[in-house]
């Protein structure tokens, strides 16, 4: 996609202007209405707190980011493998798929303590929670991609006596790549949520302290300004992962671009 600088400004200007307006309004409201900083810190307070605790904040971003990225990679690998199994056996798919969908509705916050009971405090439990939260969009999207193939293409492969393996490698898998990218993008956002939820329960030991821990830790200490810093950092982390997966996906989908641009 080649946009001229003029077009880029045209696209970026309105949201940036809105952001600036919001920050200014926020600062004015806090100052004029004399809101207590532990209830709502001003943007200047938040920036000051972030700079003051920058060491802690950066190491927290690093911890959470590591868990989220590792969890996402495991989800993509595990989800794709599961979807491949589903695509190869109707009986396996019929048996397991309803549960794969139903499991998405299990409130992970409710079972995270159980995971800590089983696997202990620490990084491994944080990653596990991340995987559980981000796995299902990969499974469902890739399974759909692998199984909903145009009937004409199926006929074409059957007419040419394609083997099961040829059908998988030359038809199903390439057809499913756009769905894999869609699933991975959804999973990227969820992975950050998963890592933070995981850290609520399993990330309190000194070497594991990520954004999730500091979100919890700042509340009783009335460090609302630092809490805001953590939330903004977590948001940026999620956006960065989403953008990274989208760019990787666009690269992978170079040949599909006609279809992808409509997504």
């Amino acid at each position, binding site marked *: 996609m080649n946009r001229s600088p003029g077009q880029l400004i045209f696209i970026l200007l309105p949201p940036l202007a809105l952001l600036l307006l919001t920050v200014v309004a926020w600062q004015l409201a806090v100052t004029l209405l004399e809101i207590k900083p532990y209830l709502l810190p001003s943007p200047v307070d938040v920036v000051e707190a972030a700079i003051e605790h920058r060491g802690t904040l950066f190491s927290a971003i690093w911890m959470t980011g590591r868990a989220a990225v590792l969890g996402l990679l495991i989800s993509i690998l595990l989800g794709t493998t599961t979807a491949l199994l589903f695509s190869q056996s109707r009986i396996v798919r019929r048996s397991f798929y309803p549960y794969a969908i139903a499991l998405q509705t299990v409130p992970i916050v409710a079972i995270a303590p159980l995971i800590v009971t089983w696997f202990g405090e620490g990084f491994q439990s944080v990653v596990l929670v991340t995987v559980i939260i981000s796995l299902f969009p990969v499974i469902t999207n890739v399974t759909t991609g692998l199984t909903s193939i145009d009937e004409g293409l199926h006929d074409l492969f059957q007419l040419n006596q394609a083997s099961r393996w040829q059908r998988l490698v*030359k038809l199903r898998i390439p057809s499913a790549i756009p769905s894999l990218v869609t699933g991975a993008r959804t999973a990227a956002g969820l992975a950050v949520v998963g890592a933070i939820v995981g850290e609520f329960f399993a990330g309190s030991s000194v070497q594991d302290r990520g954004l999730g821990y500091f979100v919890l830790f700042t509340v009783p200490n009335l460090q609302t300004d630092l809490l805001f810093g953590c939330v903004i950092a977590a948001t940026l982390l999620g956006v960065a992962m989403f953008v990274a997966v989208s760019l990787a996906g666009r690269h992978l989908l170079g040949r*599909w671009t006609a*279809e992808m641009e409509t997504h």
Partner: protein
Amino acid sequence: MTDLARTSAKGTASSPAVGMISARQIGISFSPDQPAVLEGLDLDVRQGEFVAVLGSSGCGKSTLLKLIAGLLDPTQGELEVVGQDDGRRAEIGFVFQDPTLLPWRNVIDNIRLPLELRGFPVASQLEAAGQILEMVGLQPEDGVKYPRMLSGGMRMRVSLARALVTKPDILLLDEPFAALDDMLRQQLNEDLLAIWEEHSQTIVFVTHNVSEAVFLSQQVFLMQSTPGRLVDQVQVPFPFPRQAALRGDAEFARLVEDVSRRLRETVA
């Protein structure tokens, strides 16, 4: 292989009637509680004959082609498609209603797919695909383009090339040009005829366009629906090679009118 060798291989070494199609009272229904899609259908196509099957949408024309191709099995009756003497099935090329190209493959890689699936060496796949490219009126530089970069007419040409790349004994076409504008459809009809005049495959061409059926074929079968069966047939006497000018001929117009009238009676 030289042309001479190919001719003798087709003429003597293999069964003389490879590509002959004979259907006796065939029928198919997809579920017991629904009316049969086809019932009591008879069809005879000689080796190297170009026939058109004409009928309204939904009368089972596509199903008939899928039966001939072996993609479906008839639930009643006998269907014979004569293959090679050594027991090999007749080679069948199928052109679908949509181009059904793989979007992640360029034109050449789409065309050579049938050979690739059969395990031919890559070099011979590429050579065959390159030859077919020109036969269907595409330029060598089109080979590296991707389907999304092509017009509808060019996609259909690629689809036709893919069906021809295995040098089929039988070519089945399922309303292949229905989505194209009239000019393009006529051009592709002429190109298809030229290919058949040179290679004399057995061709079954399904369409709902009367003038197209008459222009292309030696024999037009009229199909009724629910259940689908062939109820009438019309010989098309015009000699080959046929030129575009045939469409302006008074005899041609009369025959198109006659077939249209019979088709209306079939539907009524």
